[in-house]
């Protein structure tokens, strides 16, 4: 069922792989071009990735303030106005992207890595492995994430995106583990796995080279969706004020706009509220559009259509 098994071989192993890669990226290009919205999705995500990578380098370490322009209205100089200190809101959104996206990525990697490994092991081995791992998964799924995070925040200050991502990741892998286990239970009965077993291939080989590639599309899509989930979770926690203050964090911006600036009561702080909201909306939109493209890339039937 792996791609390597069904495609005809070329000259050597290396050239066959290179040809595969070329074909794959050509296919990706075709799928993206088919709908302009998918190109837009890639552009949006690329923009946010660039913001996360180089955004903080575009501004001084301490953002400039204009003491006489507190909550200034949008203008050419300040497209989204200024905050309570007279700092450009756009600069806050751009420099804040790194924390949000890094947390999202760390969360997604941990969620997907843990969920996939445990799901594969449980589904493939069944028996005691399955019982033990799935009980652990059930236990994880019963832990209410938000209340736990609220309690944790009283003893742990979550100083960086890695810590934040770690905690969110450890709280979010249960669903993926269950789904991957279900897929594994189905795939392990297929002929190519039977054949691999019959050939006496090792468990590591079967899981790593036969089962995992078959589930790669599903896992990749889950990873992207996990990024959006992590962004909502962390921004929500910052908005509630339970995580440490960081003036350019999008959740903190929302909190200060609503509770400090009265953005829901008067228009003065509205741009300060809308800028991070727009950023979250755009980033989510970009990811959803890419997931749409990925669905077609990894699903041959959709591709043929």
């Amino acid at each position, binding site marked *: 069922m792996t791609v390597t098994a069904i495609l005809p071989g070329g000259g050597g192993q290396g050239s066959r792989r290179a040809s595969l890669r070329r074909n794959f990226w050509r296919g990706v290009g075709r799928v993206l071009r088919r709908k302009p919205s998918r190109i837009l999705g890639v552009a949006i995500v690329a923009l946010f990735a660039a913001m996360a990578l180089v955004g903080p380098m575009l501004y001084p370490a*301490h953002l400039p*303030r204009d*003491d006489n322009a*507190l*909550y200034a209205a949008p203008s050419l100089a300040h497209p989204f106005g200024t905050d*309570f*200190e007279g700092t450009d809101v756009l600069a806050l959104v751009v420099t804040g992207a790194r924390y949000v996206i890094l947390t999202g990525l760390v969360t997604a990697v941990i969620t997907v890595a843990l969920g996939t490994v445990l799901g594969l092991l449980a589904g493939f081995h069944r028996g005691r492995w399955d019982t033990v791992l799935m009980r652990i998964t059930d236990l994880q799924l019963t832990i209410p994430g*938000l*209340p736990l995070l*609220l309690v944790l*925040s*009283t003893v742990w*200050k979550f100083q960086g995106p890695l810590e934040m991502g770690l905690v969110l990741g450890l709280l979010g892998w249960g669903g993926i583990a269950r789904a991957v286990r279900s897929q594994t239970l189905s795939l392990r009965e297929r002929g190519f796995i039977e054949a691999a077993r019959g050939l006496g291939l090792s468990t590591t080989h079967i899981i790593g080279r036969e089962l995992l590639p078959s589930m790669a599309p599903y896992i990749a899509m889950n990873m992207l969706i996990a990024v959006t989930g992590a962004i909502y979770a962390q921004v*929500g926690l910052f908005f*509630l*004020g*339970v*995580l*440490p*203050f960081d*003036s350019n964090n999008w959740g903190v911006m929302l*909190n*200060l706009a*609503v*509770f*400090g*600036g*009265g953005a*829901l*009561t*008067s*228009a*003065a*702080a509205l741009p300060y509220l809308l800028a991070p909201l727009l950023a979250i909306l755009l980033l989510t939109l970009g990811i959803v559009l890419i997931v749409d493209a990925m669905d077609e890339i990894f699903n041959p039937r959709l591709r043929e259509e």
Partner: protein
Amino acid sequence: MKRLAAIAALAAIATATACGTTETADTAGTGGIYTTIDGSKQIDATAPINPFNPQGSTFVGYDAMALAWPKNNLTDPNQFYPGIARSWTTTPDQGEVVVHLQPNARWSDGRPVTSEDIRTSIGLAYTQGGSAYTVNAGAAGAAADIQILDDKTIKVTQGANHSNVFLRNVLSTVVVPAHVYGSLLPAGFWTTLEAARGTGPAADKAKAAITGLAQKVITFAPREDVSAGPFVLERINPGAALLKKNPHFYDAARIVPDKVKVLNYTGNEQIWNYLVSGKLDSAPFTAVPAAVMAKIKEAPGNEIRKGYSPVAVSMAFNQARKPYDNVHVRRALAYLIDRNQVTKIASPEAGTPAVTTTGIHGSSAKAWLGDGLAALDPYKVDPAKAEQELRAAGMVKKDGVWAMPDGKPWKVRINVPASFSDWVAAAKSITSQLNDHGIEASVITSADYVLYLDELAAGKIDIGFWLMALGPSPYNIYQRLYGSANGWSLLAGQLRHSPPGKDGNWMGGPETIGGLNPGELTNRLNLASPAEQKRIVGTLARLTNQQLPVVQIYDYVNTQFVNTTRYNGWPPAGDESLRLPAGVWMQLGMIRKK
């Protein structure tokens, strides 16, 4: 949690609407329905109708009455408006307070308010502890004897360890009916109380018996409200409480509104929306952003009443931690903070920048210190002086950034509770200013105020925002700086100083400075004559100004809201009644129907 908040908000709107539609001006009579909020608590419709319960369904000034209501005086804590007490007399040292009750005072069920009710109320107050009614032997300002002189007169005698706020504490007694609450005090209660005032195992047992009643008193739930105030609770739901006029109130003719509706809220934003829509006839102090204030002022009839608020906010140092043990570092930070800018950012409508650090609110500092105020260092922004001070402390500057004397990085972390948006903005503004001057500074937030106070008390915080200047009593003012948070506490009438990190001493200041013991001086304020108080306050203000255990940032302004569409006769700006609930304004005959 967010969803719950949203549901609560929707429920509040729904029920508030329900109250509004069922209680029209016609059904309420000619006096109309007066709409307000309770600034001290949110409504919990399941809470008992009991003023001893912190969430209780009673409302101070409306159906919860005290013997008297404190005036908002700059320096004198012993000035009051009459409440259930028509008048009172006291000996010069406040050793005895004789209270004369309103002759016509009656409960809402028609029974007269008697001295026995006051005695029962005092007994119940003992179960809660604190102020004049504490069972701690030797505590300053504790009542020693309660004597009924006649049906309308009662005498309260102070114990040996006097306090000059005894009168204030006695007159602040919340009054409840003996025929409803009396059964909460077991037979022999007064004998047990007498035993509890002593020392030894028997006294400890008696103390435990008294304080053991606390929960029973707090959870007591009378079937209906029996009030001696101008109103009595008619009904309550999660959105609002409705109170109707008490026909038996001793001064019922002065009370104009037929009903009072107390709206619930889950956050300041709801209060802003009530005010913007002109729904509230009055609202107590609420922190309001400048743009929202502008919208509130636009609503027809809305007016602002500003007055003195004996509260200030400061940036307090944990002097047990380096480099804040060094006064030069504290002074340097004071020279770098532009308090005008901080106030403009954090509390433009409800704060005035501190003139300097004295420990006292700016409005009362002039009254206490007179010309002495001008002699104090104003700590105006002066980077050159700050640099001198930092060099004097041995701090070093590397690549434009200040570091510790040993060259290690110096990171200023200012802690605030996340829920106090004005403090968060102020702390951010301060860190920005410090960063401008090469001091690496950042804001750290705690999830809520209780947790924040716990972290402070545990000594986990280097620098934290701190409420201070809680006047008008000078003892209360300086107790915030030289009290238990800084190591001084009263135990069995004896003042003792705990080392930093012990018994809640997180400020960690020295016990004596230049031969002066600020904790001892503060404690003496409890007993001193007015002239001596003035001398001590002068000394403590100078000491505070020089030593800077805190940097005073801004003084709060009591910003109240009134609406002249339906009622008038509001207290003018700066009035001594402004910090009291509108129910007391009504008792004083201020509120009139338009």
